[in-house]
């Protein structure tokens, strides 16, 4: 067998071994809302960013986010990557809802990352 073939086999072996180890699925932290209760947060715009841009929540508490009429353009496309949320909120009545299962700080933004904020879960 030629040396290049041996090296190729080596490359494939190394990639497969470490690929299996490193490429694990993304964690998913959005739970369902069994009680029907939720904390409502309405975001507006101030200084070219979401206002408020820091939202507090408790672990296990359902949070519902709406955008008021001052929010326009790409800012209406709200994204919370950690909870797999990406939704265009066309009107002030549309909302996104999630229930964090772990404490931590989670970023949210518009679809282009122009407006940003954080959700602090305790």
């Amino acid at each position: 067998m030629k040396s290049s073939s041996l090296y190729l086999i080596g490359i494939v072996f190394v990639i497969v071994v470490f690929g299996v180890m490193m490429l694990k699925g993304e964690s998913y932290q959005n739970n369902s809302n069994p009680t029907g209760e939720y904390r409502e947060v309405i975001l507006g715009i101030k200084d070219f960013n979401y206002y408020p841009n820091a939202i507090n929540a408790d672990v296990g508490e359902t949070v519902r986010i709406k955008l008021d009429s001052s929010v326009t353009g790409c800012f209406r496309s709200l994204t919370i990557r950690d909870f797999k949320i990406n939704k265009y909120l066309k009107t002030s009545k549309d909302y996104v809802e999630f229930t964090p299962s772990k404490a931590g700080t989670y970023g949210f933004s518009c679809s282009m990352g122009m407006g940003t904020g954080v959700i602090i879960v305790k």
Partner: protein
Amino acid sequence: MSFKEFREKDLGRITKTVLISLITSFVVFGIVYFFKLRYIDGLLPKFGFYIFFAILSYALIMPTLKKVRGYESLPCMSGMMIGMTVGMMAGFLPGFFVGATNGMFWGSIWGMLVGMTFGILSGKCCGIMGVMEGMMAGFMGGLMGAMTALMMFNDNLRASGVVIFIIGAIIMTGLNFLIYKETKSFERKTEIEELFTIVVSFILTTLTIWLSVFGPRSALLA
């Protein structure tokens, strides 16, 4: 001269360098993971994919850099093509994968740094024209890589990372064929040892792991 001849004569050297770079990088990752990273909750699901592909990207670029560093006076057109392709790929790929974990600012800084350095080092084989071309391509590739990652953030970011890497691999294979054709009639001034591959892979992997896991990141990825 055909691709078959290139495959028979030069592929062994390329695959050897790729394998050494991969082993070095994965050993570094394994050591850091064992002593530090395994205590960080949810590290692999969050960063594993991007660090893995950043390591593959470095291994992809190493054979070209190692080969052209041995030459000092290639034709200007070849040197410019080499400098530009290496600069662009070495800027775009790390910029993309670091941009996906740290945001556009740090992704573009890292991409530009790696791209411009690799572009200059590889473009040097033909003089100042190659150096300038490599530097400019590294600058552009670094910015573009991080920007693409940010724009894909709410789309299929991981899938696009795989696609971009495969395209990068095809381009680098083409470049290696070009280098083989162009350097056939030139004599190598210096023989670059595999130690060069090990040292560069070690530095790049260490810095990428640090930047992705502990480094500063934009508010979007807080």
